[in-house]
Each structure stands twice: as structure tokens, then as C-alpha cells.
């Protein structure tokens, strides 16, 4: 019995059906079409082609960010709608961790970076240790050049992934050293990785509430601080 996985955290639109140890089907598109037009038709096509009925679905895993504001909202609301309507469990999967999960290489640092605008990136660092994915640095918003310079000081090879790795490809090549730009099929988000990490979380007993799950907006706290400064904290 498969789960459905969704990643719409950037312009990449990816949906997958996977069981715990098998990827049944995946549709990944990197076009400029908006997710609001693509996502549901893709899910319908995917299930049709893989001959998976709605009643076969055992859960929904969705990429929750950080990432594109609009993309995350579309992905989350779609996942929530399906989980609610089909009465199946839902699990939110951190986007950057899912990317690292799709690249199980020991001995290197995995550095997924997604666009946070104004030359900033959302960045987290991971490594694989004895078959387990470990987070070295949680997701932050950081200026891209400083982030790349800092990574180039590391002693280990660093695989840079994500849309910002592609966007700042020249910068990565210019710095060179230990920085490696991930290959095109690894550099983007894949729903299959969301499914993989999703299963991992489900195994650990993680379930998210359909009504309560929110996207992971890294700057959110900042907005709240500003709000509180201006309006005073309610007591």
C-alpha cells in the first residue's frame, strides 16, 4: 500500500507514489507553469498510470519548506485536502532534509540551498553517518556568497544542491575547491525523496494534524517579532 508524496517548494513540481522499499511512480516537472494548474492533474495521472486507487493510499507525505511561499501553500493545501477527504494520515517533511535524503553519500557535507530572495538562501547542512541522515546545521536564511565561502572552508567535499545552487552555479565554479554542484537529477527536489523520508518519519510515529500543520517559513519568527514590537504583546 503506497503513500503519495508531494513537493512543490520551488518551481519544480514533483509527485510520487512509493511503498516503504519501492518507488512505484514519480512525475517531476521543471517548467514555469504554476503548481495550481499542474498539481492535481499530475496526481490524477500518476495514480492512473501506476494503477493505484484512492482507497489504496495509506498516507500523504508533503514537503513543508522552507521554500517558495506560494508553492508551499499549494502543496500543503492539496496534501491536507487529500488526507482529510480520504481519511488517511499525513506527515510534513522538511524540504531541505528530503533533498539530502535523496543523496545518501557518506564522507561529504550535503548543502541544499533554496531561494530566499534578495541574494539570500534557505540553507541547512547534512551528512550521512552509518546509514543515517544527520543534520549538522538547521535551516537558516543566509546571504549566498557568504554561505558558499564558508562552505569552501570545510575540510570535506560539499555537494551543493537546490535551485540556488543552479542559480549561483558561476559562483560555485569560481570558488571551486571542495564545492561540488549536484547533478541535474539530484540538484532539484524529488517527491521520491519526500516519500523516503516521509516513511522514516512515519516509522518513528510522526503524524501531523491536518488542521494544524503549517509550512515551515524560516522568517516567520522575524515577522512575529516585528508584529509584537509594533502592537505590543497581548497579555
Amino acid at each position: 500500500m503506497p503513500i503519495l508524496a508531494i513537493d512543490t517548494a520551488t518551481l519544480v513540481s514533483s509527485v510520487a507514489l512509493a511503498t516503504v522499499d519501492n518507488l512505484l511512480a514519480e512525475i517531476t516537472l521543471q517548467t514555469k507553469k504554476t503548481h495550481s494548474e499542474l498539481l492535481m492533474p499530475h496526481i490524477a495521472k500518476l495514480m492512473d498510470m501506476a494503477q493505484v486507487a484512492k482507497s489504496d493510499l495509506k498516507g500523504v507525505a508533503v514537503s513543508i519548506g522552507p521554500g517558495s511561499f506560494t508553492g508551499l501553500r499549494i502543496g500543503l493545501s492539496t496534501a491536507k485536502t487529500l488526507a482529510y477527504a480520504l481519511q488517511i494520515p499525513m506527515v510534513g517533511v522538511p524540504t531541505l532534509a528530503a533533498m539530502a535524503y535523496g543523496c545518501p553519500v557518506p564522507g561529504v557535507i550535503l548543502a541544499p540551498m533554496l531561494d530566499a530572495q534578495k541574494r539570500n538562501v534557505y540553507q541547512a547542512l547534512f551528512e550521512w553517518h552509518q546509514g543515517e541522515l544527520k543534520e549538522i546545521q538547521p535551516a537558516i536564511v543566509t546571504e549566498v556568497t557568504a554561505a558558499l565561502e564558508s562552505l569552501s572552508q570545510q575540510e570535506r567535499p560539499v555537494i551543493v544542491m537546490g535551485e540556488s545552487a543552479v542559480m549561483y552555479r558561476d559562483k560555485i565554479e569560481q570558488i571551486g575547491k571542495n564545492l561540488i554542484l549536484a547533478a541535474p537529477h539530484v540538484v532539484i527536489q524529488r517527491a521520491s525523496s519526500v516519500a523516503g523520508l516521509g516513511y522514516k518519519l512515519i516509522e518513528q510515529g510522526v503524524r501531523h494534524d491536518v488542521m494544524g500543520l503549517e509550512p515551515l517559513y524560516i522568517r516567520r519568527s522575524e515577522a512575529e517579532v516585528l508584529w509584537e514590537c509594533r502592537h505590543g504583546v497581548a497579555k
Partner: protein
Amino acid sequence: MLEFKTTSPEETSAFGKCLAKILSAGKVVCLVGDLGAGKTLLVQGLAEGLGIADSVHSPTFTILNVYEGRFPVYHFDLYRLENAGELFDIGFYEYTEADGLSIIEWADKFPEELPDEYLWIEIRSNYENNEGSVEERVLQVRALGATYEQLCEELKQTCQFLR
């Protein structure tokens, strides 16, 4: 800085059409002027010039309207926003760096949050001084960045309302 003058609502709308000829996807226009200065009229003319069929009105309560034309147009009205953090909440930075044309009404509320380069248009009416009887509008256009300076030059050559 360029200065233009229109003497009727129709002309203000026609000035918007002049803008449509020089603007393209990826550009940002900041629009400043008091309530009733004619900002919406200008945007309506601009949208018409871009071949947008949707009805165009100021997104005072929705904050953002998206119109589909040859390229998407993101029409912001920041009037009701109270702090810069709310810009993040509406995905402002994503839109202004995306492949559409961004029009930002009340851009002067958050000058520090604007993109690095843009076209800045300030509309002033003589409404108050003339007891509402005069329809004259002065439109000041400033450019920030070389790309927009070039656009100003094109506007100077092509728009008949130059003062």
C-alpha cells in the same frame, strides 16, 4: 526625473498605455500618490495597454491582484499593511523577483523593502487647490538603476504628455 501632465481621467489612463509600451516582464513600478490621485486609473490604462481582459481595481483589501496577459501582472496595494513582516507573509519578495510585471501602490510605506531597481511614479492632483473642479494631474517619473533610466528615455520619446 521626467514630468508629465494629464488634464482628464482619460488622459491619465492613456498615460498608463504609454507605460505599457515600455514595460515588460520582470520590471517593477512603484506608484505613489494620495487617495484619489489617479493611481488606479493609471493601472487600468496600463493593463488595457498590455491586453489584459480582467477587470482591474485597486487591491486595497486583497493586497494583491494577479492579472493574466502576455505575462503575469502583480498588482499590489500596500495601504493596509502595517509592518514589513507582513510583506513576507504575502510572498512579496518572490513576486517582485519573478517573471512578471509588479506594480506596487503605496510603495513609499516600505521604502527599504523594495527591490534594488525600479521605476518610481508619483501622481499629484490639483484637486484640493481647485475645489475639485480641475482634472489636472502631474506625474513625476524617476528611475532607479540603468535599466529603468533607459525606460525613462523611451518614455520621454514616445509619450505625448511630457510637460
